[in-house]
């Protein structure tokens, strides 16, 4: 037999003997593709962003805003918060609450809309809104902006009607205005048909039918709107932009970036945490796999015959993993500072602290994998799968709000999520030690639980057998 074939056959034999490798070869790709589809809601109604917390403060006192808020609530993209999340007794959020809440560690929301007292201007035709954001993640922020504008713009006509109505009321007096509405309603009903009372009610509610601007048009109308349209052009898009243009002149959005406004290179700063944690997981789980090398070399026999316990061996590996991870993370962050201008050096001590805790959590994860695997092949297959899974649901690829809401609960069980929270708290939100303490506590807790499980498994597993 040709040497290459003989050697190839050897590899297949080796593979076949290794049950874990065989099952992982088939199970991992299948599980992977299934999980990712599931995570991102492929072929499901609940795909797309969902449950992004959005605080809404209505200080306008306008009747029509209730509809707007209802419309926002109906968007599955948002989870609308109107009550103060922690104040007792419960009370509605006030504008003054927003900033402190958004700046606090573990902020309950990163986006807020204020409908201020001067929402509807009495002096000019237009609306005034305030948008507060912590644009920690670019994709998420853009999504929130887009959907918020869409929803608000579709209510502009009604709110404007209110504005007109309010002015009319002021000039004409309430009785005159009512008579005016009734007169018009009767005329319209007798000329065009319809129910005069219903018409009058809708006029009193300032619904003048402007809403049709934002409703989907039928083909003929669209052609009427743009008679000279080039057939190659996409009329739909043109239509939308023209409506948006119109409204963006009418609606005045005061935007206010609450967190991260001073960050020098926002994009790299918000992304680097996700890169770091994935890299760390791979690096550290590979170092845990060195346990297998030492087992295969029979060194554990010599060690365990000495006054050395299994726990000693495992904790030394753990500390080694943490040290290695820490050094690699610091290098990664310093590189991101040189290459992309992420401001690392001013925050280095706190960042290093988060790195220690993240490295500890990742190392314990690597140890757990090694403890439940029977061979290095099985360990690396399992690690690849779990790392990708955790990275996906933990938000290292996309903001977790892009996944179905129930998965977002699982996100918060992953060390990926909390490590990224930690990096972001330091680099993006520039929080203090006291503020990041809860995150460190969580990472520490994850480490203790995972490492405890790993040691328990090691004591029953085969690595020391």
């Amino acid at each position: 037999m040709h040497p290459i074939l003989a050697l190839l056959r050897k590899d297949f034999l080796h593979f076949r003997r290794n049950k874990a490798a065989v099952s992982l070869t088939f199970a991992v790709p299948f599980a992977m593709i299934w999980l990712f589809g599931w995570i991102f809601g492929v072929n499901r109604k609940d795909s797309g962003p969902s449950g992004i917390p959005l605080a809404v403060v209505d200080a306008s006192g306008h009747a029509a805003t209730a509809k707007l808020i209802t419309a926002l609530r109906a968007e599955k993209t948002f989870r609308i918060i109107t009550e103060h999340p922690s104040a007792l007794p419960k009370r509605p959020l006030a504008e003054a609450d927003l900033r402190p809440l958004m700046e606090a560690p573990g902020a309950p929301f990163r986006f807020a809309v204020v409908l201020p007292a001067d929402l509807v201007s009495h002096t000019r035709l237009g609306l005034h809104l305030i948008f507060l954001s912590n644009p920690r993640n670019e994709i998420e922020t853009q999504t929130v902006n887009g959907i918020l504008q869409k929803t608000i713009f579709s209510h502009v006509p009604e709110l404007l009607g209110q504005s007109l109505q309010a002015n009319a009321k002021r000039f004409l007096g309430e009785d005159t205005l009512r008579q005016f509405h009734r007169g018009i309603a009767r005329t319209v009903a007798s000329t065009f048909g319809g129910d005069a009372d219903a018409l009058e009610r809708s006029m009193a509610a300032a619904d003048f039918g402007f809403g049709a601007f934002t409703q989907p048009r039928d083909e003929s109308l669209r052609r009427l709107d743009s008679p000279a349209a080039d057939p190659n052009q996409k009329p739909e898009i043109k239509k939308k932009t023209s409506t948006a243009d119109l409204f963006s002149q009418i609606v005045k959005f005061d935007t206010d970036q609450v967190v991260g406004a001073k960050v020098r290179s926002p994009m790299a700063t918000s992304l680097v945490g996700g890169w770091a944690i994935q890299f760390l997981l791979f690096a550290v789980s590979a170092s845990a796999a060195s346990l297998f090398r030492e087992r295969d070399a029979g060194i554990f026999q010599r060690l365990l015959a000495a006054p050395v316990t299994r726990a000693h061996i495992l904790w030394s590996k753990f500390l080694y993993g943490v040290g290695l991870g820490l050094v690699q993370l610091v290098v990664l962050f310093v590189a991101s500072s040189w290459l992309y201008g992420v401001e690392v050096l001013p925050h280095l001590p706190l960042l290093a602290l988060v790195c220690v805790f993240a490295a500890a959590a990742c190392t314990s994860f690597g140890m757990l994998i090694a403890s439940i695997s029977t061979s290095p092949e099985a360990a690396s297959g399992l690690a690849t799968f779990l790392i990708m899974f955790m990275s996906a649901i933990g938000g290292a690829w996309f903001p977790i709000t892009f996944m179905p809401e129930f998965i977002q609960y699982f996100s918060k069980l992953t060390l990926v999520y909390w490590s990224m929270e930690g990096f972001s708290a330091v680099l993006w939100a520039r929080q203090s030690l006291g503020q990041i303490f809860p995150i460190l506590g969580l990472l520490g807790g994850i480490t203790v639980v995972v490492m405890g499980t790993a040691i328990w498994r090691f004591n029953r597993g085969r690595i020391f057998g």
Partner: protein
Amino acid sequence: MLQLHSVTKRYGSLTALDGISLDVARGEFFGLLGPNGAGKSTLMSLIAGLRAPEAGTLTLDGLPLTSARSTARLALGLVPQHIALYPDLTAVENLRIFGELYGLRGADLHGRIDAALEAVQLADRARDQVKNFSGGMQRRLNLVAALLHRPKLLLCDEPTVGIDPQSRNAIFEYLERLNREGLTIIYSTHYMEEATRLCSRIGVIDHGKLLALGTLDELLTRLPFDEEILFPATPATTPLAAQLQPHGDLATSGGIVRFRPRPGYKLSAFYALTEAQALPPHLFTQQRPTLEAVFLHLTGRSLRDA
């Protein structure tokens, strides 16, 4: 010093050790002789506390040798059958780690490392990576790595596999010296020559059972014969073998016939037969039986065939 009482160890359905009882006294050079798969390494690992037995007790100086007792561990040194060293580290670095595990440090540790490397002729390779050592050099380092902390009991699991005769001799002399200085040694091997030369007492083990236990002389006197005659198995000697059949045990292995005469059989009768068949005397070797014969007698198999 070391007591084993009815020790049984199983790997799944396989019984690797089957009710072993054994006493090793202080200062003994105890040999554990058995073929591949006899259970020697398993027994060593139980004594070293690496594994727990399913049944039976092991005590060292009256203290139970369970895997958790570290005081007893300080008194033990294990030379594993396989090279258990860090290949990327140098000889000195390896020894330092293993010394530190026993709480040694500083000048004391350095002194011991130098002495140990000297004793196994590795002083000139002290700063080479172990992976670049020859097989025999790795073996020698594997041995001294278990001695730095000066254990009271040394467990040597086939420490001379793959070693050339000179190095082997050096190791023997080193171990004999340590034994004279008071170290108790348990030495496993499947070489009867090693057991014969080194061991003051020998346990013969096969299929997890201790078949015999005693000094070399005690084991030999248990044989129902005290001489054996070896001759080549050739067509010329076939008739002789047939004629000897009623007078003792005949076993052929490796082209050699071993004849163990029944008690009372006169060797003069044997030589009368050879002369009658005109077989030249140089074909025949007469010897006192060896451990090989003991093993053959106990198991019906030759140690080398087992």
